[in-house]
């Protein structure tokens, strides 16, 4: 029975190495004291995946046309089977996503997890936050009701008040000098194609750096990084042995697990 299960897994591993990579990711060492606060990042990722899945399904029924956008939303919410559930999940999930982003950001800040060598990951996280806000802004227009329309008018005009670039940003968002059919379709394209694509790319980078640099121990734990500089000059990115800046391949620091098995 075990052989029956393992045969396809081995087949896959031999040809792609993907099984080893996944088990490396899932069973990598984390510092002592890792706790529930460290799950906020994964929770945010989960919220994002929920938005992706529900968004893809909503796109099958939504019509980004000024004459029909509101009708299609009404149809999804009130007529289609389970439409209320998927739209509701997408609508409330958006808020959950943003709230979790901020909680995750707070955890990173309070644990000092933005410090060397993880500054770059903080910057990527800020970009993710801004794009998530853009998702919220562009998604808000799509129901095409009075609230959506006037909130977007005000939102675009707030952008217009930025010095120098403001009027250009506003014209770009509107697709012209006045809000119109182009505004709705370009908000839709940004909301479902441009920004999610960029988000997926940045989240991939974000996770790569998390795996490469390791989890930050909480400041109160046994593994907490002391205030004075590291004696051996190595980054205190994680527990001793997690980050080993020995040059290899492209010259970057290699990641080895405690047992010494290279990735």
């Amino acid at each position, binding site marked *: 029975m075990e052989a029956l299960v393992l045969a396809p897994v081995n087949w896959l591993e031999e040809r792609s190495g993907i099984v080893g990579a996944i088990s490396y990711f899932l069973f990598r060492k984390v510092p002592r004291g890792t706790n529930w606060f460290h799950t906020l990042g994964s929770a945010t990722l989960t919220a994002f995946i929920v938005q992706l899945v529900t968004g893809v399904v909503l796109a099958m029924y939504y019509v980004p046309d000024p004459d029909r956008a509101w009708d299609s939303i009404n149809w999804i919410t009130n007529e289609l089977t389970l439409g209320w559930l998927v739209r509701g999940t997408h609508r409330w999930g958006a808020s959950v996503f943003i709230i979790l982003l901020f909680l995750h950001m707070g955890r990173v800040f309070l644990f000092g997890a933005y410090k060397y060598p993880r500054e770059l990951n903080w910057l990527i996280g800020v970009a993710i936050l801004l794009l998530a806000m853009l998702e919220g802004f562009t998604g808000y227009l799509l129901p095409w009701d009075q609230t959506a329309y006037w909130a977007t008018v005000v939102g675009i*005009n707030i952008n217009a008040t930025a010095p120098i670039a403001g009027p250009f940003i506003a*014209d770009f968002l509107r697709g012209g000098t*006045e809000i119109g059919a182009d505004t709705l379709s370009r908000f839709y394209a940004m909301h479902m194609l441009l920004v999610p694509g960029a988000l997926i790319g940045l989240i991939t980078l974000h996770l790569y750096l998390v795996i490469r640099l390791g989890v930050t121990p909480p400041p109160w734990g046994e593994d907490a990084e002391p205030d004075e500089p590291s004696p051996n000059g190595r980054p205190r990115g994680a527990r001793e042995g997690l980050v080993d800046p020995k040059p290899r391949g492209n010259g970057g620091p290699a990641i080895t697990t405690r047992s010494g098995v290279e990735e």
Partner: protein
Amino acid sequence: MADDLERPGGDAEPEAPPHAAPPSIWPFAFALGIAVALIGLIISWPIAAIGGAIALVFGFLWIRDATREVRGTPSPAPPARDDEAVELEDETAARYPRSVFLEGATLGIGALIGGIVTVPALGFAVLPAFVDQAYDAVDLGPLDNFPEGEWRITKFKSVADEPEDVSRRTAYVRNNGTLDGQASFTIISNRCVHLGCPVQPQGLTAEEVTEIDAESGPVEITATEPSGFVCPCHGGAYDIEGNRTAGPPVRALDRYAYSIMDGRLVLGEPYSVGSVEGEGAEAQITAYKIADPGVHVDGLEQYFYPYVP
């Protein structure tokens, strides 16, 4: 090479040249001839004939070169190289090896292809929002609907080729009578210059609506007696000439240029207003190019917005 192995004492012998035709320009010329002939087939017969002739001549030269060995004719000896020349070539090769060239070529061609694809797409995403942006003239109907000294709310379709839902705009119109024999109107846009919400007239509004089917789209005209305008979103307030009296707006309400054609009032382009002094036909208006709500057109803050698209 098989030849080398069979030759006794091969080490001392100079290496035989590879069995390949010497470098030749003829294939290129031959291909050019074929291309010219094909183009000629479409454009004109004489060009096709010229192309055919080119292909024939250079094809013959190419075949003559390529078959030289088979025919037993010795190929012209390559120019003798002295040691210095060989050394120089090796040095050049070391400084600029083939792999470097291929690397550069791959990156360069990749960047070129990327640019060819990206630049037009980026331009298409951005430029339409800035190019050919004009305001359509809007026919508001006969002047009889605008009695002297009274305000009218007009709702109209502002863009000819957009659905009415998204292109309906509102303007407040007052006939000021005449100034120096010219008809004078005050036409105020209802777009709040704080953040763009629709300002409302403060005062009684008639229930009766006059509907006109103008060429530029349907127009609704309603009588009103405003004492000023107030925005529902953030409480911006304006007096009857559009000057800010309270709240967050940064300038006076925008106005529309107008003209009178065949006894009908026609809206032109909107423009932004710094402030208005005086009233009615005698009002002195400091006018600026139309700007987005929230954008300062006068005062020190205008220098925050040096370019307005």
